[in-house]
């Protein structure tokens, strides 16, 4: 036995400390994740939490995907969207969300919404809502909550299919925001119903399913839910439905009209969704901008996105137009439908222009 070996078979040398810096040896200062290219000069915390967690045979996945669907499709496939990318790993969510920031934001919103409702109810506000406005909340905000739920379930489905962790997590947080907002509205209406005699919490669903005003919206939402392409779902949600219908109804009607009907609660509840959307839109624009300017696939992608834009814009515009009668229902009229729709069209034109897409004639 060599002298070295004899030393090794004795009890291992006692390590005095397991703390960083207590010894210097090769690699002792390698204290950053070093397997991906950060977007900026240094990796952000979000990138460290996210990048490469969903592996890729084209990067590090030596043994390839090891279970497949019966037709041979692997656990993750680039073929789950018609969009193409020369680098699916380039995308970083603009909102940089990981679990801690997501819960902090969601929890803050829950607190804000609950405080507003509680304090509003304590002050007796719902009883002072204009009766015509109460009907609008009951029937139309009640119907609209189902649209939000549809987008939430659609994005919940879509977050399974993306080719990278960055894409899927951005869609997942989108889903989480939509489903929370659908529940926010549901619980808000249920709670003010306690203070407003005759308020029918079931009326919203009936309007969603049967009222001609809402059938365009339902068809538009079901078309998003019915797409077999997860990126079409994500695109149609944030680049088309949200600006043309979601924002139109939320900001273009509820947020502006409510205070004139003695309602200061609804705008606060709805404002959370507007802030959610700004983040979801930023992520969407970033992703589709990357794809639309892809070195190899830009032309293909732009043609595809134009097709999606035309298809979903037609449905969403029809949906928006069907909503017009709601603008006439409040007793105090604050905003006109045509102004709100012009604003919505302006918004979608801005998004389309940012993405280098051709705005359909109907939106000009």
């Amino acid at each position, binding site marked *: 036995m060599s002298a070295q070996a004899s030393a090794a078979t004795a009890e291992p040398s006692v390590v005095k400390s397991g703390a960083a810096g207590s010894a210097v040896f090769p690699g002792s200062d390698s204290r950053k994740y070093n397997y991906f290219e950060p977007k900026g000069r240094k990796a952000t915390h979000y990138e460290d939490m996210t990048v490469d967690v969903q592996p890729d045979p084209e990067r590090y996945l030596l043994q390839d995907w090891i*279970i*497949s669907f019966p037709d041979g499709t692997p656990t993750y496939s680039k073929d789950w969207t018609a969009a193409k990318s020369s680098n699916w790993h380039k995308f970083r969510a603009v909102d940089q969300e990981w679990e801690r920031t997501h*819960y902090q934001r969601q929890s803050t919103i829950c607190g804000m919404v609950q405080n507003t409702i509680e304090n509003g109810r304590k002050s007796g506000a719902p009883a002072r809502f204009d009766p015509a406005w109460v009907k609008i909340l009951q029937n139309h905000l009640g119907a609209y909550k189902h649209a939000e739920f549809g987008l939430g379930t659609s994005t919940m489905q879509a977050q399974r299919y993306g080719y990278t962790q960055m894409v899927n997590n951005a869609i997942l947080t989108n889903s989480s925001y939509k489903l929370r907002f659908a529940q926010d509205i549901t619980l808000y209406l249920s709670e003010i119903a306690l203070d407003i005699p005759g308020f029918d919490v079931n009326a919203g669903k009936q309007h969603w399913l049967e009222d001609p005003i809402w059938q365009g919206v339902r068809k538009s939402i079901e078309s998003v839910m019915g797409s077999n392409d997860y990126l079409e779902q994500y695109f149609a949600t944030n680049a088309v439905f949200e600006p043309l219908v979601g924002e139109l109804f939320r900001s273009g009607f509820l947020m502006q009209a409510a205070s004139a009907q003695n309602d200061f609660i609804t705008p606060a509840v709805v404002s959370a969704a507007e802030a959610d959307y700004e983040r979801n839109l930023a992520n969407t624009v970033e992703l589709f901008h990357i794809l639309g300017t892809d070195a190899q696939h830009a032309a293909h992608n732009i043609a595809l996105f134009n097709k999606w834009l035309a298809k979903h814009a037609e449905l969403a515009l029809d949906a928006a137009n069907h909503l017009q009668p709601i603008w006439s229902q409040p007793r105090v009229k604050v905003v006109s439908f045509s102004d709100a729709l012009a604003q919505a069209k302006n918004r979608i034109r801005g998004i389309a222009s940012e993405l280098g897409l051709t705005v359909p004639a109907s939106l000009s």
Partner: protein
Amino acid sequence: MSASLTLNKITAQKGITIAEAANRVADLGWTPSYVQEAMTFPTDYKISKTPRDPMKQVLRSYFPMQEEKDNRVYGALDAALRGDMFRNVEPRWVEWMKLFLAIIPFPEISAARSMAMVGRLAPGEELRTGFTMQMVDEFRHSTIQMNLKKWYMENYIDPAGFDITEAAFGKCYATTIGRQFAEGFLTGDAITAANVYLTVVAETAFTNTLFVAMPSEAARNGDYALPTVFLSVQSDESRHIGNGHSMLMAMINDPSNHQLLERDLKYAFWQNHAIVDAAIGTFIEYGTTNRDKNKESYAELWHRWIYEDYYRTYMLPLEKYGIKIHHDDVAAAWDRIVKKNYVHKTAQFFAVGWSANFWRIEAQTEKDFEWFEHKYPGWYAEFGDFWKWYAKLSVPGETNILFNSDVGYVYPHRCWSCMVPCLIREDFVCDEVDGKIYTYCSEGCRWTHKVAFAAEYEGRATPAMGRFSGRREWEDCYHGWDIADAIKDLGFVRPDGKTLTAQPHLRFDAKDMWTLDHVRGHQLGSPLRGFRALSPIEREVAVADYRKGFTINPCH
């Protein structure tokens, strides 16, 4: 003022009940009539009953609750640093976290993805909220674990291995075993994967050893971070267990599902046992320095969590629905742990292959030997000499134990099913599937590949069932390579370009560390290639010979 007057009483106002809130939220869904919902991942199961949500929680209370849990976790991490945790932490333990935490964030996020698969399958919307919360929970788990790993990297004496973590996850033979676990959650028949394999078996049974038993051992090794993160993770699991059970109950009354349920409960149990017990058993038994004879061994923990808690109180009651429970497999798994030294043989294999790892493994010592012998009588006779050899050969300049014929270790075949090597030699089996020969660690794994993962099960078409794919034998990827070149290709080399990330000891001094030059000159090979090249008669002899096992030579 009345003594009983509280702020709550002053501010309280009438609200809706929790049950009512849950009901209203469940009424958000509808059946589309204009356009059919997107094609979802298929299943061969029939789900006609609406599953109930046992938790009845809404997102309004969920998010603040989770934020509070997070605050506790991150506060505890800060406290650990302020209390100088790393001065007292046991490096033997933290080294294994390089492997564990390289694996676990992907299974977690896979579980989030799999919620998309079950979300659309169940009739009604009641359980949708449960699935939504699980989706966000799993997003939490995946990123909170990436954060913990980064925290270890920043504060532990040797960050090498943490710094390459997700690249290592893609390449290491051991992490691929964990990937089999994860891909099982989200590929193939949606119910098999996302309900039975993930929630009914992995989360209900095996997260207890993963996220409860293991953190206890971490605390015994001066690591307070792992318990604070993982017990917080585990607190979410009760919701997932509820989701799984509710979905199971929505299917179990339909006798046409029983055949598939029996298949999947058997497959999922056996594969969870083969994968989780190999890994977590090793971390708990071999990653610890605590040799308190009063603490439970992994076998005892298994008996508590898997046998008593899962098998006796969860699985057995399923029999009243007409489900045949695979009692023999539970007994066989127990025997593998207690009588056939499954965990010890796995730890031995990890140690033999240390140079292709990305974490350090130090030798077990006399103190460890005494504990093992106390808990597993006969351990010393089978493994004592091996660990002495390991210690002896831990010095750079010695022949790498993987290729050192003095030791007597015989490199094992790889199991095509669970991907753990075929370590219990007497259980080794082979079979032909679609005209090709494969090797398996056990009859359970042979059955899984050949019978369960097929287009037909007991005469019934199973068109949704997944298939095994990919380059499942890791050794085949480097067949004929010099190990030094393979290690370089794996990226398991420190930033100086020559020192190995893995080391067979915990000596934190450059002069004690192995480099590529120390291991160069030995070729890796695929056992399966050689095995397939044999004639049927030669193969029979090889199998008989393999089943006889090997004996480690005495180490003087």
